[in-house]
């Protein structure tokens, strides 16, 4: 009834191409942002920050990165964990070598380093597709983790092989290290992710995004209308890896605080982010957020209900979780490749037509 576009006419191409064309959408998103930025920080505690909010934000950013590559450009990658490690280690080396360097610059540079590494490992995509490309990126995953384990220079020769994020400030607020307050860390992540999500949305609806989607939908036709496959694929690898690298840097510095490559960045990270993208929706910015929230909240909810509420063993909840995620992934892959984002869209569509069936 209230969710209508009736009476809202677009008078320019610009208005027609705005991100949210329906006033109610704008209102909804505005309210959401006001709550996220203005209300949540006052109530946040360590548990909420670490277990849920920062967790979701960091993975949403990694999901955005992988979605750019896989959802928009159609190139599969199983190297996300390895690329997150590149971002994390780049930020560690940068911030320990140049302690005075502003942490935002550190983040961006880490993303830049990861973009270069990603482009390098993206080179095979010019020759191979699908399954074979997945295997090639898998090799990147194992190689990178091995590298960060083996070469002492990367972890400053610390005897444990661990890297520890030193305390760093942004605009006078401490954002890393054990002393940093949950509200500040949350707000920092939220700001970074919001800016990056907006940038991603802008890129995918412009020239570069269209060239990615063209390559994804039919690479031969894309080439025949003048899109250079090399340029399109490598730019997708670069932008995607940039996002994943920044996510890795946030993951290590702001969320974990300490990291050790074999555990923090293993192949399960790659799969976790891939599941976020599949469940959230391939080729959807919103989907990356929905998928991340879903993947983070399902285990927590299951544990709360089954273990704390009904007295099951922790292992049982874990089994249910694996079965549930497994079947959902099969469901989404077969029935709804556009994931939760699409279901949300269908719901909105229904709402718009309500009370008429169609």
């Amino acid at each position, binding site marked *: 009834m209230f969710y209508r576009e009736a009476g809202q006419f677009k008078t320019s191409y610009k208005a027609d191409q705005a991100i949210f064309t329906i006033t109610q959408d704008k209102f909804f998103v505005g309210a959401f942002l006001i709550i996220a930025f203005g209300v949540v920080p006052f109530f946040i505690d360590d548990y909420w920050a670490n277990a849920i909010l920062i967790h979701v934000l960091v993975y949403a950013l990694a999901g955005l990165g992988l979605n750019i590559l896989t959802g928009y450009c159609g190139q599969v990658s199983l190297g996300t964990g390895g690329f997150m490690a590149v971002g994390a280690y780049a930020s560690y080396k940068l911030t320990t070598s140049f302690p005075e360097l502003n942490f935002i610059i550190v983040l961006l540079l880490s993303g830049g380093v990861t973009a270069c590494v990603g482009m390098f490992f993206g080179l095979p995509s010019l020759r191979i597709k699908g399954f074979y490309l997945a295997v090639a990126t898998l090799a990147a995953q194992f190689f990178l983790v091995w590298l960060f384990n083996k070469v002492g220079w990367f972890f400053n020769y610390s005897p444990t092989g661990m890297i520890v994020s030193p305390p760093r400030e942004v605009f006078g607020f401490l954002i890393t290290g054990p002393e940093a307050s949950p509200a500040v860390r949350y707000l920092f992540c939220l700001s970074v992710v919001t800016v990056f999500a907006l940038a991603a949305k802008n890129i995918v609806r412009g020239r570069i*995004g269209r060239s990615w*989607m*063209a390559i994804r939908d039919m690479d031969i036709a894309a080439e*025949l*209308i003048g899109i250079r496959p090399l340029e399109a694929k490598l730019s997708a690898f670069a932008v995607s890896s940039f996002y994943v690298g920044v996510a890795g840097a946030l993951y290590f510095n702001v969320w974990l605080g300490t990291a050790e490559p074999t555990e923090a960045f293993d192949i399960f990270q790659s799969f976790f982010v891939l599941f976020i993208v599949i469940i959230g929706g391939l080729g959807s910015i919103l989907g990356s957020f929905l998928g991340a929230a879903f993947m983070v909240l399902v285990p927590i909810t299951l544990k709360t209900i089954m273990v704390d509420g009904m007295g099951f063993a922790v292992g049982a909840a874990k089994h249910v979780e694996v079965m549930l995620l497994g079947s959902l992934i099969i469901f989404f892959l077969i029935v709804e490749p556009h994931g939760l984002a699409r279901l949300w869209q269908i719901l909105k569509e229904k709402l718009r037509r309500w009370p008429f069936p169609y």
Partner: protein
Amino acid sequence: MTYERTIGDTILAVDQISLSFGGVKALSDISFSVREHEVFAIIGPNGAGKSSMLNCINGFYHPQEGTITFKGKTRRQVRPSEAARDGIARTFQNIALFSGMSTLDNIMTGRNTKMNKGLFWQAIRVGPAEKEEMAHRAVVEKVIDFLEIEAIRKTAVGTLPYGLQKRVELGRALAAEPDLLLLDEPMAGMNLEEKQDMCRFILDVNDEFGTTIVLIEHDMGVVMDISDRVVVLDYGKKLAEGTPDEVRTNQDVIDAYLGVSHGEDE
């Protein structure tokens, strides 16, 4: 058909092109030339090598022998993306649209090569990138108006009926404002009304924008109506070249193509 057009100099010269796939000779020693602003038809039975010819022209196939001269530049092998940037656009025998994108986005991709704002500006969007986007959107809207597909602007192309998909594909090619437009059976599988629409669009494009058109078509009526000159291929060889009337009365053509045929006239 009384169209006032001035046929210009040669824009495309195909010189002794030979192409084979393993043992199959798809094209042998084909030469012809197309003049500026002309509507040029390639006809011939199934498997004659018509599509292969177009594929050589825009760099999708690389002929083993011969050269192609386009706008004064001679080359044998060219990358398809570079041919497109040189001003050659085309549509396909089997529709090759980007199925996950809307009509508008599909046609906008036709303008990709004409846009140049980099990643940084794209990410920020407000400012130069948006200005560029709007300027090109305006051109695309003209194409949309021209093809009378306003109503399906935001529809995902995968859900459109066949005839409309063909039209969107033409739109994508037109959006590139090509000098040479290659159309591979633009009317195949269409009903009479759709065919008439398509004929009208092709002639209008040629007339209003002066675009040179090379088309493959099986419907002889259409070919005779709209083309200035025709080349006939059969089994990869050139049988004849000339005006529709000359070709129609050519005995070789009648034997091979219209008479005892080994292919089907669709």
